[in-house]
């Protein structure tokens, strides 16, 4: 009897478990299309890229396994190492400047003033334009003899500049295009954050006699910081990946002065058809992007914890 009574729950439990497994199996079946899609568009291309990076893979001729040779070659390739520096230099400026200007613009547009809606719409217009079209227009504006930028400088007595036509000024000039193009995005994200802030802390602060700066420093900035972090992550990834603007305006020149990892990668893969070498660059570049993204997400998490405590 005792055996019967103790066996029944065990049997029920076993039956329940098998039912749960069967149910889980059915769920797995439902997720199969998604898994297949992920495998086809993410896992397989990635695995294949890693495989290609271990091959000498040209367009004409056979492929050959070369192990880590493509990676080792990158370590001694001055042009690749230089492109990493260009990428970070460009990214730093193309993230920091739009962040500062975007936050400032968001604070301005958060206030009530006449024609605010219209001006806000005008402000975000650059963001809507196609990067290649923008790049072509800026190329003409940068022309050292005929460009409108030097004409504008001449009106205020500043001598003409070489902009993207000089190795010394090419990256800051390209950053100028990025700032013009993407500051509105930062503004929109931060403006969204500002609109969601509660009014009570400000009311208390006013009663306590806080100044405008104190309210910004101790209330607005901490509360809007998570939104700024989102903008920072998006801008960083975007700036790291920038290709179209640089390629259209300078093709990485003059010389290799604005050759970022992306441009270098494009040349290796689609101009020189060194697919193995280019695949190694992709893997390294991916590692850099993942590392930076993780760092930024960690900083963002830290910011949230600081706010909670």
């Amino acid at each position, binding site marked *: 009897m005792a055996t019967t009574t103790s066996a029944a729950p065990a049997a029920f439990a076993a039956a329940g478990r098998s039912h749960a497994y069967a149910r889980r199996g059915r769920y797995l079946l439902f997720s199969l299309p998604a898994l297949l899609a992920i495998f086809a568009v993410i896992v397989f291309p990635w695995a294949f890229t890693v495989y290609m990076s271990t091959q000498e893979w040209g367009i004409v001729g056979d492929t050959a396994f070369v192990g880590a040779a493509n990676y080792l070659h990158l370590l001694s390739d001055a042009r690749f190492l230089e492109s990493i520096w260009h990428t970070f230099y460009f990214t730093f400026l193309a993230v920091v400047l739009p962040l500062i200007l975007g936050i400032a613009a968001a604070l301005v547009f958060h206030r009530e003033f006449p024609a605010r809606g219209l001006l806000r719409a005008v402000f975000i217009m650059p963001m809507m334009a196609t990067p290649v079209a923008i790049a072509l227009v800026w190329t003409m504006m940068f022309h050292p003899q005929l460009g409108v930028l030097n004409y504008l400088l001449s009106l205020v007595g500043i001598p003409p500049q070489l902009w993207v036509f000089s190795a010394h000024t090419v990256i800051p000039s390209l950053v100028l295009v990025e700032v013009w193009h993407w500051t509105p995005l930062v503004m929109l994200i931060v403006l969204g954050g500002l609109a969601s802030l509660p009014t009570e802390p400000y009311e208390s602060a006013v009663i306590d006699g806080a100044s405008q700066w104190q309210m910004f420093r101790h209330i607005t900035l901490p509360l809007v910081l998570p939104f700024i972090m989102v903008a920072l992550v998006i801008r960083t990834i975007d700036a790291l990946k920038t290709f179209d603007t640089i390629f259209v305006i300078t093709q990485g020149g003059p*010389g290799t002065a604005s050759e970022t990892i992306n441009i270098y990668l494009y040349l290796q893969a689609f101009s020189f058809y060194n697919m193995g070498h280019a695949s190694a660059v992709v893997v390294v570049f991916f590692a850099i992007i993942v590392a930076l993204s993780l760092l930024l997400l960690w900083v963002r998490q830290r910011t949230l914890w600081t706010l909670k405590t």
Partner: protein
Amino acid sequence: MNDHRREPRPGLDRRELLKSSAGAAALTAATLPWLGRRAFAQADFDWRQFEGEHIEVLHTKNPRADLLQQHEPEFMELTGIDVGSEQVPEQQQRQKQVIEFTSGATSFDVTDVSWHVQKRLFGKGKWLEDLRPYLDDPKLTPADYDFDDFSQAGITYATQADGRIDTLPAFIDYWIVYWNKELFDAKNLPYPSNYDELIEAARTLHDPANGVYGWVSRGLKNANTPVWTSLLLGWDMDSVNEQGELQTTTEEAIRAAEIYTELNAKYAPPGVAGFNWYECQSNFMQGNVAMWFDGIGFAPPLEDPTKSRVVGKVGYGVMPPGPRAQHAGMFGTGLGVSAFSEKKGPAYFYALWATDKENQARLLANGAGSPARESAYQNEEVLANLTVPRDWVDALIASGKIGRPGLPVIIPVTEFRDIFGVALTNMIGGADPKTELEKATEQFRPILEKSERA
């Protein structure tokens, strides 16, 4: 059989053949049927043998492709072959071709081939159909297609090292010197007759205080390499010799690089290190540059009064002789049939039609480019109705006589242009030409060797 395989005469090398090329016969007077009366649409040739077939054509985006596409209904009417054709910008078109050829299946049946970049690569991969059997077959090629009418330069360019003819010549671009007659006249200077005079003219006319510059040519890496290699031809020397050896650190190559550097660093507008043809053209069109060295296809914009301030003032100068020879850097395009096409016959018909006398004459008549056929330059009706100055045609014909490939016929042409292009840009920035050329040669040599081993 068409005698399309012109064998070099004993004792005559390739260079001499090129010298006697293109325009040699162009000056002989002959009148061809004017456009609209297709010469080879004779009754005994069956143009409709592939009626009902459909082919795809991949063009490089340019005015020449516009012209062909505009007249494709004529081809469809003549042959009954349906044509789907698209134009893709040069860089993307080249990538698309290579990717599809290596995949072993092409979405196009006929395509443009830039000889100066793709000839060796396509030849080595055997990606294009050998057209010799087609040209030899009277059922596939009408007698009055007249292959011999193509300039020798075009035939040489269209022929692979192993003798295969895998493209039909379509267009040849020579590099010339555009010069501002007004600026030259103001200083009573004649058009230079050698390299020294060229440099002297640039020096004399250079007056940056008044916004006048003596010279402009491409400084942007990759785009700038043909400037240097074209200058090098003046020493009767190519950047890679017929044995496949680099000649880029020779005295001649260094001297050509020094001239390139002097002209661009001293007498060109500021920022030239980043100039491609567009920036050169826009400066020259403003009338503030005395000389511009580039491809021959820029006459239409220079003579367009809505865009240019130098209309009627432009001299079209043949490249002056160098210390040892006079050559115009030559670049060109042919039309080839994909070896992977399942419609090779209809595709070949399209290539025939696109390179026939009538379409070649149209190129010239519209100023869309320089035809590879000699008859185009003999067509008085075309010459009388040109939309560009006659001087331009004269420069074209004269350049045809001295045309010589401006870039080496090797697989890694793009890397060659890139690596030496960076060196040339560095020279404009003050680097030593000899050191830069040595560095670039050291970097490029293993790439060249590897490409031939593959």
